[in-house]
């Protein structure tokens, strides 16, 4: 009898342990999951001119298409600046009024000049007077 009880207790403890370990592992994995892999996620290809025009025409509609998505934006560089964190911010020609402004990943090193045509991958965070993207990477580099 005591043997049986012992066995039941043992199995009980063992299963509890397995559940605990699995649970913690899954929890830990979720908690420490990495940010989206901008480089490899399927991106929406769009020309900078079209992206800005779409936002200027109807922001809500453009948000439903582009907001929080990884975009692959092609365009001509009109300005290269730095933000206060020292990250490169690249503006791509839009409609003449608005541009696409993309904050590049801090790991991105480049010697690209204004006027160059580039394709930038990044996450669209919305529209102020320009379309804003973050976590930018040059495509094919």
């Amino acid at each position: 009898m005591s043997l049986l009880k012992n066995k039941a207790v043992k199995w009980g403890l063992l299963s509890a342990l397995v559940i605990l370990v699995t649970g913690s592992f899954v929890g830990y994995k979720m908690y420490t999951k990495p940010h989206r892999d901008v480089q490899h996620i399927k991106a929406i290809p769009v020309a900078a001119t079209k992206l800005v025009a779409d936002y200027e025409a109807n922001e809500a509609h453009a948000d439903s298409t582009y907001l929080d998505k990884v975009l692959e934006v092609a365009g001509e560089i009109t300005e290269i600046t730095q933000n206060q964190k020292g990250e490169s911010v690249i503006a791509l020609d839009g409609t003449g009024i608005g541009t696409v402004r993309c904050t590049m990943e801090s790991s991105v090193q480049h010697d690209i000049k204004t006027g160059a045509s580039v394709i930038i991958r990044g996450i669209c965070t919305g529209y102020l007077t320009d379309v804003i993207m973050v976590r930018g990477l040059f495509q094919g580099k």
Partner: protein
Amino acid sequence: MKKIIISALFITSAIFAGAQNIYMTKTGKVSFYSRAKSPEKVEADNNEVSSVLNTQTGDMVFAILVKSFHFERALMEEHFNENYVESSKYPKSTFKGSITNISTVNFSKDGTYPVTVEGDLTLHGVTKKVSSKGSVTVKAGKISAYSKFEIKLKDFNVSIPSLVADKISEEIDITVDCKYELKS
């Protein structure tokens, strides 16, 4: 509608005041920090803040894309966007107000001047009057503005599930740090 007003404000303030008084930035920094008891820091920063400062009238406008806030932990960023500020529904946060003691700032003399800013802060679809102390620094023709103030989440209808109530404090410290350039 709000967006139209804000864009209009950006443009009209630029036209009427004459370019000499209009300073702006598109790379301002706003960060926040939750003074929670948890060992994990709940903090994020946004380096894509647009702001316009009229040095003559003291008028100040800030426009922030909520999804530009970056957290170290992806899961925290996800929860922030989906559960707390609902950034898909409310993608923007704005502040429209003014420096009430702008006349005490001498923009032609280098120095750091204490200021008080008052105005309307819109977050999570709720607009509230806020007031905060800060400073304006003038250095070699460059102007920067700094302020740190506190907001209460419940003022903006942001609710925290009781499960994590001990990890996220009801009061959030907001830090604003913008370096302006003369609008060309």
